[in-house]
């Protein structure tokens, strides 16, 4: 393949930079909804993208047909020349040549579809049989094995195998007009065993859905909020992480003022990191999609903004070091600046200590989703508990946290001693039209003062 890519790249002329990324992916899925097998199947997806850079303008060609790479290179170059009229900013990096093989404990490609189905059926039966209030269930299993070939006009060649296993077990409870959903997710990058022995988790989803039916909606208002590691991860990713993506900043002088390195963003206990090398992390890759090695990047250190995430283009434009954060969901898209594994570094406060002086607060757990528009964020907890007089009290539902990120970061006053990772961020991260991208989310329990919890008052 290397020769094929090298040959095709040679046909580029009158252009500053070209790269090619090809992908071949095989995936299978098994979905149950309610008592029925909803869908079982498999897919194969092959395709590629050529990127050409000319005077600051990008030309892209994407394709499913791999037959004529030379033609695609020509197409991308021609497009780039059509639009490039300015100055190219593109950080130099050392070319690398590497082949990254997957390492799987139990290779899901060797597991027969019948076995995958049988296992998912077990999880489904656990949920459906849990309680008479369980109205429906949803089990979604999918796996994929992708090989990516990347080569550029500077001599970089990276071949990487990317395995992925995903499981969602969801229980839907109903009592009259009230419907409540709870889910548990699993999976990972190291094989099929990551979704085996999930029976207890499936049971937990069912139990939570049933409990939530009897739980009142949280009363909207301002609270001291404690988030569990998963929700801490979602908050870090959504509220702050996206602001660190330099493509929001690099051509926006005003944003650069807001995101000035050296500025204080939180207390000196606060450290936020994006690290594409975390072992086993869902966002872990040795190289990003421009062939740049990933690394551990401090974004906030002791409360001070010290770094941000870059592609080669944004790094050059802002005269900052590359970070290895150019990623793409698949070949139909060029890479853009994305997070890898983003987390708040572990602190020292035990959970009990954190809640003991909260008179009235909310303990928010798990995440259904999150979304940001720069300074504003909204994220939904799976469920929550009221905190009353320093103790975890009754279960509440419909817990939606919202706020202004700049204020909220300053309002984080305690950081727990119990760093944890989300086993599988629900649905992955979406940015522009690129969704879902696997990212790692994590952190310890944290306490946020004066946090707005949405809901009817």
């Amino acid at each position, binding site marked *: 393949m290397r020769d094929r890519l090298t040959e095709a790249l040679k046909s580029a002329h009158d252009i500053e930079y070209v790269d090619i990324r090809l992908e071949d992916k095989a995936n299978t899925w098994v979905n149950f909804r*309610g008592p*029925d097998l909803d*869908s*079982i*199947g*498999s897919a*194969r*997806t*092959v*395709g590629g993208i050529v990127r050409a850079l000319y005077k600051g*303008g*990008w*030309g892209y*060609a994407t394709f*499913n047909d791999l037959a004529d790479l030379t033609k695609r290179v020509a*197409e*991308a170059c021609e*497009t780039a020349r*059509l*639009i490039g009229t300015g100055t190219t900013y593109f950080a130099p990096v050392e070319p690398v040549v590497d082949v990254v093989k997957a390492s799987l404990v139990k290779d899901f490609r060797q597991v027969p*579809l*019948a076995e995958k189905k049988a296992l998912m059926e077990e999880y489904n039966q656990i949920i459906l049989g849990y309680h008479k209030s369980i*109205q429906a269930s949803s089990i979604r299993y999918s796996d994929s094995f992708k090989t990516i070939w990347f080569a550029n006009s500077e001599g970089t060649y990276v071949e990487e195998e990317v395995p992925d296993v995903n499981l969602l077990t969801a229980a*839907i409870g*109903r009592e009259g*007009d*009230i*419907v*409540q959903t709870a889910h548990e997710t699993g999976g990972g990058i190291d094989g099929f065993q990551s979704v085996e022995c999930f029976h207890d988790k499936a049971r937990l989803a069912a139990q939570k859905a049933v409990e939530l039916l009897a739980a009142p*909606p949280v009363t*909207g*208002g*301002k609270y001291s909020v404690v988030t569990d590691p998963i929700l801490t991860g979602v908050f870090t990713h959504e509220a702050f992480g996206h602001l660190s993506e330099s493509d929001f900043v690099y*051509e*926006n002088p*005003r*944003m650069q003022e*807001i995101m000035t390195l050296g500025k204080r963003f939180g207390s000196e206990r606060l450290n936020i990191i994006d690290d594409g090398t975390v072992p086993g992390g869902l966002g872990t890759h040795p190289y990003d999609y421009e062939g740049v090695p990933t690394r551990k990047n401090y974004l906030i250190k002791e409360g001070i903004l010290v770094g941000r995430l870059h592609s080669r283009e944004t790094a050059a434009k802002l005269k900052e070091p590359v970070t290895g954060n150019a990623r793409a969901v698949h070949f139909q898209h060029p890479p853009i600046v994305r997070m890898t594994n983003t987390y708040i570094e572990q602190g020292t406060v035990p959970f009990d200590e954190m809640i003991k002086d909260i008179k009235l607060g909310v303990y928010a757990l798990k995440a259904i*989703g*999150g*979304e940001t*528009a720069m*300074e*504003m*964020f*909204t*994220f*939904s907890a799976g469920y929550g508990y009221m905190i009353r007089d320093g103790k975890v009290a009754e279960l509440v539902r*419909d817990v*939606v946290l*919202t*706020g*202004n990120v*700049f204020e909220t970061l300053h309002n984080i006053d305690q950081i727990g001693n119990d760093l944890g990772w989300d086993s599988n961020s629900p649905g992955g991260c979406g940015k522009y*039209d690129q969704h879902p991208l696997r990212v790692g989310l994590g952190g310890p329990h944290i306490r946020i003062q004066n946090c*707005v919890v*949405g*809901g*009817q*008052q």
Partner: protein
Amino acid sequence: MIIEQIIEKASQKAQGVQALLLTQETSAVDFDNDRLKSAQSSQRTQIEVKVILDGKVGISTTTDLRDIDGVVNRALEAAEFGSPAHFELPEAQALETVKIYDPALLPLQKPEMIRMGQQMMDMIKTYNPEILAGAAVYKTISRVEYANSRGVHYSADHTDFQVSTGGQLTRGTDILFVSQSLGQKKRSVDTEEMATQAIEYFRMAENIAPIQSGDMPVIFTPKGFIALLLSLGLAVDGKSVYLGASPLRDKLGQQIASPNLTLIDDPFVEYGPNTGAFDNEGVPRKVNPIIEKGVLRNFVYDLDTAGRVGAKPTGHGSSRSLTNLVVQPGNLPYEAMLRNIKSGLLVHEFLGLGQGNPINGEFSVNLLLGYKIENGKLVGRVKNTMLAGNAFAALRDITAISREREWVSGPYSWFSGLFPYIQVGKLSVTAK
């Protein structure tokens, strides 16, 4: 023909086979942060195969046109463990003639698309040079072929054209986003009008208006109306109905919304964003009233869910996606609707839509773009404000519908449709 080869090959074992072949060419130009950033050419192919083997269903897809044996074999393998087929593949039927192909789009090349984007950006920059403006123009030419083992063979060529513009304005730590977009199947689009609308949303946001928490009347713009449709869309999904998860599952023929609301799913709108004569299961599309004068009329079924509940498939494909939603206009001019409100909100864009428990109807969203109404006038943009309530209750509480309607569509929209401004009597607003 590839598609016939698939039917023939799979039919050697399977009792039923259907195949779908999609081929597509896209050209796109993207402006971002005030400049032409990239342009793209895309070529796509996709084959989807569904087989019924001994009464069980298996599916497989591929993007590789040379992988016919592979895709057929994988579908057959999946069918061995597949779910029981509760349906038969459809027979050939007469199809509605639809307008989905605009030859005027064929000669449209990137330089002209660049000019269109540039014009919209220039207008926004002229209004306020501080705005970081963006624009995008996408043109797609597609061919869809459907065939099955009962002798059906449909094909359709269609064109798609998407235009969008907008920008962001940063003042201090305040960031304002505005975007306008339109997707349709014809070339004629008024780019000047689109830029003018984007500018109007910026202009109305020039002032920040303070707001107090409480219950108040809320006007949903055509784009904002999506927030109320989201729960309805999930609840009329035949699968939720079949599974018992839909709160509307036993409400057909009942009053579920205000009598002034009529909502039709119309796949035959000329050059509409989701117009087409057949779906991806070979079911002819038809006009489906969803709500007529507040009464729930139809759920949306694919072959599978229709078979399970004993209904007819409604032509919304295997994903049961609504096509072009058309809300009947009211008789009140939008300006008059506004004038009638002493204190309230106009809501346009949201953050956090679809989180929580949308099928229940409950929503609690941050206002990304919302405006305070005071004594019949828009007095400025509201900040740090949440809107909460129940979408079904809000549909019952619609107090006015405007005469004016606008198309809402585009890549980030949950639904496409032609919507008026819709006023809801009272919703809970939380200001920070």
